[in-house]
């Protein structure tokens, strides 16, 4: 029970177990069986389950999304894997017009049990076309489920749930989470696809984190605690449907809401959260909910510019304390030799 796996290994185990349990599951995507195995998440699967069930594809993301839909509509449970969400825009038509709509427009006569895994890049100069985080685009489309697990534990449980789900599930995985370990049971467990999780209780303000930003929120909560402020941290996990009630009930306790999205603020997931919370908990709010996330321009490549692009824990703590009417000066986390375009080494579970 105390076994540790990292995020990539956890996903691999979910795929491995699903492939073993259900002959209808197939895994396909560019590089799935290659020596790198999509950052380790598909390593060894082809050897274990054969080239018919774990396969590479041509550089045709659009058609292969349709192929997966054809498989799903005729009884299989395909898992499509993309090394960057940016690449999957080529398949956006299939996802939005077809995958999301078949079950509805065909009057529930068939379901579309497929999973589309997309990795979100960050750092090391991946720049404008390899590090977008486009969950908001999928979050707007009825018929899709959209998840962004943060911990290795949730990654495994939600992946198993996604594969078993009869709805299409889009799963966005942040690259910087891959090496982070957490307690991951060996059993085939399921984490619900539509529930946020309180990762740290607090009383003064609710911080909602999306994916990697949940870890930054936890670090910010530490800083706030040192300053005597108590932040509750919610790991959103489900982007569509949103678990509004979990957030609302947290805000009913703390009266303050700061969302830290891993994506553009404008027109993003954080806007929907604000709107939903305002609709349901207006009278509980002491101050206006605020949002942090990516600024309103594409990701620049040079580390000199990219360092400035992402919210950092001390900035989150600062904003939270301002919402509480305080003004402390929080110091950036000590990163030793590490530059900001690499993941923070200290983030390790269990969470």
């Amino acid at each position, binding site marked *: 029970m105390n076994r540790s796996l990292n995020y990539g290994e956890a996903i691999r185990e979910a795929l491995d177990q699903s492939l073993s349990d259900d002959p209808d599951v197939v895994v396909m995507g560019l590089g799935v069986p290659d020596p790198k195995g999509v950052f380790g998440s598909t390593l060894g699967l082809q050897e274990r389950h054969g080239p018919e069930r774990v396969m590479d594809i041509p550089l045709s993301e*659009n*058609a*292969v999304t349709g192929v997966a839909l054809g498989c799903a509509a005729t009884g*299989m449970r395909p898992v499509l894997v993309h090394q960057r969400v940016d690449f999957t825009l080529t398949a956006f038509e299939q996802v939005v017009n077809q995958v999301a709509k078949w079950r509805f427009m*065909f009057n529930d006569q068939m*379901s579309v049990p497929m999973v589309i895994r997309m990795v979100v890049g960050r750092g090391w100069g991946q720049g404008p076309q390899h590090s977008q985080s486009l969950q908001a685009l999928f979050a707007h489309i009825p018929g899709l489920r959209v998840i962004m697990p943060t911990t290795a534990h949730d990654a495994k449980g939600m992946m198993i*749930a996604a594969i078993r789900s009869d709805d299409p599930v889009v799963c966005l995985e942040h690259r910087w989470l891959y090496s982070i370990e957490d307690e991951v049971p060996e059993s085939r467990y*399921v984490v619900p696809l539509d529930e946020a999780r309180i990762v740290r209780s607090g009383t003064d303000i609710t911080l909602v984190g999306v994916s990697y930003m949940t870890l930054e929120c936890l670090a910010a909560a530490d800083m706030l605690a040192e300053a005597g402020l108590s932040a509750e941290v919610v790991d959103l996990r489900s982007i569509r449907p949103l678990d509004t009630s979990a957030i609302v009930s947290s805000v009913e306790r703390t009266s303050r809401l700061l969302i830290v999205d891993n994506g553009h603020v404008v027109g993003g997931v954080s806007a929907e959260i604000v709107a939903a919370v305002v609709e349901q908990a207006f009278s509980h709010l002491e101050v206006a909910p605020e949002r942090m996330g990516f600024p309103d321009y594409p990701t620049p490549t040079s580390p000199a510019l990219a360092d400035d692009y992402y919210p950092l824990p001390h900035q989150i703590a600062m904003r939270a304390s301002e919402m509480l009417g305080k003004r402390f000066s929080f110091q950036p986390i000590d990163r030793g030799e590490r530059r900001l375009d690499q993941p923070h080494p200290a983030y390790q579970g269990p969470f």
Partner: protein
Amino acid sequence: MVEEAIANLYPEQEMRCPVHLSIGQEAAAVGVCDGLRSGDLAVSGHRSHAHYLAKGGSLKRLLAELYGRSTGCTGGLGGSMHLTDLSAGFLAATPIVGSSVPVAVGAAFSAKARGSDRLVTIFVGDGAMETGVVHESLNFAVVHNLPVLFCCENNLYSVYSPMEVRQPGHRTIADLAAGHGIRTSAGDGNDAEEVAVLADDAYRSIRAGEGPVFLELSTYRWREHCGPNYDNDIGYRSLDEFDLWRANDPIEVLAARGVWSQRASDTEEIASEIHLAVEFARESPFPDPETVRYPVLHRSVS
């Protein structure tokens, strides 16, 4: 006759959805579906009524769908442009051009993966051959040696756009497909017998595991692109051209050859079937808005 009935009734404004009729192109649908077994699947695009019926779809459920009724093949949710009928082996028709093609290929992939002897036929138009996704689909089908027939009904137009502005004149559509290394053939899409021979030939080799086939059929749409009327007056094609194709009526072709004679009793029988289907559609209830408002997502898994 079915589609003529639709064309006649459409102006009553009870079929409140766009319809793309196949009048003039019937031979392709009939000839190609002739060799399909009931376990095989057909997939189509925006112009799909003929494919649906030829694959054994229900005339009643089609008309009810056009009339937006709960007894339609998608319960009124899809309308003319989004059909499905798994009981007839008609997987789907969807109207984003090219977009249903990889789905058909996926159905063929799944048939092969599960060791079934199912075969899939996907219908496309000449315009669809300009979409990237069709090329990706052809390549995928060839690489995986899938049991799928691509049937292209080349009716010379994409809406009102002639070939010249869309494709080069010095290659055929079959040539284009052949670039992918797929077996191709081509023929007169207005001759149901010829079509059936070509299709059967394709099915034989597909069933023998020799991989996908691409079939180009030349034909012509008589009515407007979308809607019930003739539109030779608006000037995108010449009356000469129309008359030439009109003379090559797929039904007359068979009749002239004596293969099929449309006897008065047949005509009557069909007419009465159509009449019954229209009645059925008209008398069917509309879907209940309350039931549509169900949440789109299934309940969570556990």
